[in-house]
């Protein structure tokens, strides 16, 4: 597991209160991990904080799984 994936997973565990073992790379935050739409806004804010970047709204809307987040942050984080 990459460093970025590990950090993203840690944030998801903290914010959604799910067990780490239940998170697969294609788990959807809303459909599979019990998040609601406000949770996903907060998740994106936490990614921005952790990775020191700004995620525009149109990009944020496309981040629906752990894999989406890792892919985006690998390409865009500082």
């Amino acid at each position, binding site marked *: 597991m990459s460093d970025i994936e590990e950090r993203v997973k840690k944030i998801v565990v903290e914010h959604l*209160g799910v067990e780490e073992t239940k998170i697969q790379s294609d788990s959807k935050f809303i459909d599979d991990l019990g998040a609601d739409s*406000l949770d996903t806004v907060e998740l994106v804010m936490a990614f921005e904080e952790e990775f020191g970047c700004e995620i525009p709204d149109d990009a944020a809307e496309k981040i629906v799984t752990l894999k989406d987040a890792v892919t985006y942050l690998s390409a865009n984080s500082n």
Partner: protein
Amino acid sequence: MRRVVVTGLGTINPLGNNVKSSWNSLINSKSGISKITNFEVDNYPCKIAGSIDNAKINDEIVSLRDQRKVDRFITLGLIAADEAIKDSGFVSENEKSFRSGVMVGSGIGGLDTIYRNSSILDNQGLRKISPFFIPSSLINLLSGHISIKYNLKGPNSSPVTACATGTHAIGDSFTIIKNNKADVMVCGGAEAAICPLGISGFSAARALCDTFNDQPEKGSRPWDKDRSGFVMGEGAGVLVLEELEHAKKRNANIYGEIKGYGMSGDAFHITKPSEDGNGGYRAMEMALQESRLNSDQIEYVNAHGTSTPVGDMIELFAVEKLLGNKNLCMSSNKSAIGHLLGAAGAVEAIFSFKSIETKTLPPTLNLDKPDTKSSINLIPHTSISKSVNNIISNSFGFGGTNASLVFGI
């Protein structure tokens, strides 16, 4: 005519995190007032309050993750609601859910959440504002959360009448059931304003006690000559109100009945009560009329009694004028728990029903030198054993809003 009874009680307050423990502490003359420790109070004129220890907040009822997404007043309200609903044994399901509502208010709501997000906006910018900021601080979101958690799809609202909120919530719920718009109402109030903005705001209004910082438990002293203002408390009180036949049909435990509800406005001043006590008098009179009781049938008054120099005497005067003073008892729970603002009337209603149930009237603590020659028994220092059938409970709020309820068996 539809009659309304109480079938569930729940509270978390400075004396305990449930009805049983807080009632036992209350009648054993324990004080819930202590030095404020959740923020630095060195520069504050008032350094004392009735705070709830975080360790007493049961995270099996509201998980730590969920607590992070709501203001503290919502957490406290959810804890009290859980106890009350479980105590009532009522399960809201199918069509019943449409006839079961929620009316839990707050005087101020998410004040500390608003304060924190305001600082974030100023210091870190708008992208750092939490998406949960608005839903965590809006007052009616407590009623919303309770409805979602317990499937209550009937009337849903939240009164906001400062320190009269809890009493208005119960009275308005009583009226809703009486008028056949619901069979069950989960009602009450919650407050969590012991925060920098809350204490500084009430201090600026010269409303808080500032003379007993070294002896916190002596700060709240209704009707005593040395009183200097109220001591703020936090917490929540929730009651389950139910139409009498509905409660009987499911063999519910009935604590007592809501017999009357009165309301009035002073039309006088934004923070001071009307000097002749006429507003409080008319609220009590209206409640008494609806109850169809005579004034001499009221045996105990659970007073608003905040420990402010002006308010205590005005209430005493209004009570004497309406009810006389023969064999009448009156005490203030605020002497032990402080003033829970929007939750006060609800917690005091719960203690009123415990007074009826246990035949015990709670004391007014710190009433060392009564500032009155009234012959009403203000129950100084220690509780008394007395069987009472009918009680009036009063709440008065900033803005000149007054509410009174008649409880009985």
